[in-house]
């Protein structure tokens, strides 16, 4: 149940991240000096925290979105299955977030 509202929360988070992604691309198109501004902002502690949150939102929304697609196909509706898959996507998101930042350039 909690994961259901989290899908919305992470979705809106990713909508905000879309603005970040666009800013990153536009600043990169603007040249090295402009791009440097984004790098400095994203490298600052608040920027880093934001990026970690965005990456977690991405992995949770991705996993849970695939869970929703399976529901749309009619699979996994039993209560114990739904509970198990909820825990699975949350754990998966945590693991993927940690792995991502362990290997991030």
């Amino acid at each position: 149940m909690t994961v259901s509202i989290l899908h919305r929360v992470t979705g809106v988070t990713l909508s905000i991240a879309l603005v970040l992604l666009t800013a990153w691309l536009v600043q990169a198109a603007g040249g090295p000096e402009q791009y440097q501004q984004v790098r400095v902002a994203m490298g600052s502690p608040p920027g880093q925290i934001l990026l970690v949150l965005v990456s977690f939102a991405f992995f949770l929304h991705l996993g849970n979105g695939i869970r929703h697609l399976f529901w749309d196909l009619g699979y996994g509706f039993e209560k114990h299955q739904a509970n198990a898959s909820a825990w699975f996507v949350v754990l998966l998101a945590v693991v993927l977030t940690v792995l991502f930042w362990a290997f991030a350039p």
Partner: protein
Amino acid sequence: MSLRTPLSRVLGLGSARDGTRHFLAQRVSAVALALLGPWFAISLLRLDSMTYLDVTQFIARPMNSVLMMLLCLTVALHSQLGVQVVIEDYVHTDGRKLVYLLLSRFAHVLVAVAGVYAVLRIGIDR
């Protein structure tokens, strides 16, 4: 026998007959993003660094440019559809709802065009 309330019939509002298209577009874009999203995440991991040189060199490669533009457009569409539902669910004043829906549309179109233009510029400039 109609199941609509008298008030509902007088107001004449109701389904815009657009629900199925919205439902399908949300899911088709979701499937596309289940592929494009991981591609982007893995691509970021495979970069040597996040410096201007490495990032623009990556984006400028033709196949990457195409996928980046698809990512921008598909995320914008998927986000527009999602935010629309959130506004429809939580904003209950008609006027305010209309304004928020319009602002969300405009913002999403702006972001989509800006993203595609930026990727093209990076590809052409480098």
